[in-house]
């Protein structure tokens, strides 16, 4: 617990937490504005009202979340490399792997907060603007969990990449390349492409239904764990020189 408190203290003035909170607020604002302007068009689509609410707005929200994760993950390790701070940490009686895990938990928690903010906005829209009796809170909660779960491989992957490169432009470039290649491959049918963490995150955004997909969820959990374990293991190999 004290390690987590230390990690939070280090984050001061880095903008990591504000970035993820801003992503949540921006996503919520986008949902409100979009529904305000395009309400009739959206509700006239040949889709169930809940599917309209959850899938038609999610594309942009997901892109915001993706860039929020990329930027926050880059910054969370950049502060360690900037003044060689991590080298001092190597000389102290503390676990470097524990530090990696704390960073993972901090990013995960604030991403979850951002997603909750966005989905609270969706709930507001659903209660107020969907035809009477069509809004289902249960479905929204399941979709919230699903979108969070499918975002985790990108978070886990980006944290691993940013922990390996001292130059912040490298993980940032990897993130942008991941986004572009993910966009190109997201609609492809080949299941093998789901090894690409950005494709997994894009899956709910390209689906026409807000239904939970067990295969995608399973791949998301597996990838998150693989990248996390790899990151923890690599962090144990001190790279002082």
């Amino acid at each position: 617990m004290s390690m987590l408190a230390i990690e939070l203290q280090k984050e001061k003035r880095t903008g990591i937490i504000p970035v993820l909170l801003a992503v949540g607020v921006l996503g919520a604002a986008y949902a409100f504005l979009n529904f305000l302007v395009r309400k009739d068009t959206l509700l006239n689509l040949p889709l169930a009202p809940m599917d309209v609410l959850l899938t038609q707005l999610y594309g942009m929200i997901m892109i915001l979340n993706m860039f929020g994760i990329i930027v926050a993950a880059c910054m969370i390790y950049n502060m360690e490399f900037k003044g060689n701070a991590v080298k001092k940490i190597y000389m102290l009686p503390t676990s470097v792997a524990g530090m990696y895990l704390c960073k993972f938990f901090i990013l995960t928690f604030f991403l979850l907060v951002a997603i909750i903010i966005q989905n609270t906005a969706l709930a507001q829209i659903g209660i107020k603007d969907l035809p009477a009796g069509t809004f289902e809170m249960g479905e929204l909660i399941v979709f919230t969990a699903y979108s969070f779960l499918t975002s985790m491989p990108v978070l886990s992957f980006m944290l691993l990449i940013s922990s390996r490169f001292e130059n912040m432009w490298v993980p940032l470039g990897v993130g942008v390349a991941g986004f572009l290649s993910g966009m190109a491959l997201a609609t492809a049918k080949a299941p093998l492409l789901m090894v690409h963490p950005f494709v997994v995150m894009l899956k709910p955004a390209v689906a026409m239904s807000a239904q939970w997909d067990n295969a995608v969820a399973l791949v998301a959990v597996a990838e998150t764990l693989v990248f996390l374990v790899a990151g923890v293991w690599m962090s144990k190999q001190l790279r002082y020189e």
Partner: protein
Amino acid sequence: MDYIITTEKLTKRYKNFTSVKNVSLHIRKGSIYGFLGPNGAGKSTTMKMLLGLTAPTKGSFTIDGKHFPEDRLTILKEIGSFIESPSFYANLTGRENLDIIRKILQLPPKSVDEALDLVGLTEFGDRLAKKYSLGMKQRLGLAGALLGQPPILVLDEPTNGLDPSGIHEIRNLVKSLPALYDCTVLISSHMLSEIELMADDIGVLNHGRLLFEGSLDSLRQNALQAGFAADNLEELFLSMIEKDNAARKQRAQL
């Protein structure tokens, strides 16, 4: 003799370059051990091995009876260190930087102020570390090493980047530490004149090999025997290095 740090034929080899070769050090408890050598002699590499930052290719060492890597955390709890350039969180103030170290070492909050005071950074404690001058960053690094008064201090060229009065101040501080806190100091430098003013014992390293280890008095005696004036150790040091370099060249030609 009560040694707190001993190394046994410590060797560090990179692909086709040996940075440290069969170095056996004996550092007495409560002493200031000056680790001397020209740039690239292997001083920092030896210190990094002692801190577990890089693994020895061969040889072993004990610190206060403990071994790496089994006792890594216990050893690091006992060592305050400053290696190469200062390391700090650029987004935090000097005080906040020390507070992070304090929390990791589980020390009382007042230890931060004590460390800042010790290195003369109290009035700049609330300034962002990235806005510090090189000398102030150096002092911050030293404060981080001194935090909690560890029984062993490993300082790698701690006066780099300091102005003459800063060098004098830090030299006096290092000199006073064994008496003040009953600690042992391993300090490196490439200047004998600086080490001479602080150290009880010295080790001279060149191209990874230990050329001399002993007290300053025995170095003075060596100087006399070699025909140098006992008060001119700098010349003895330079001639030791030159002799060793010449012998290396000869060995290479053979």
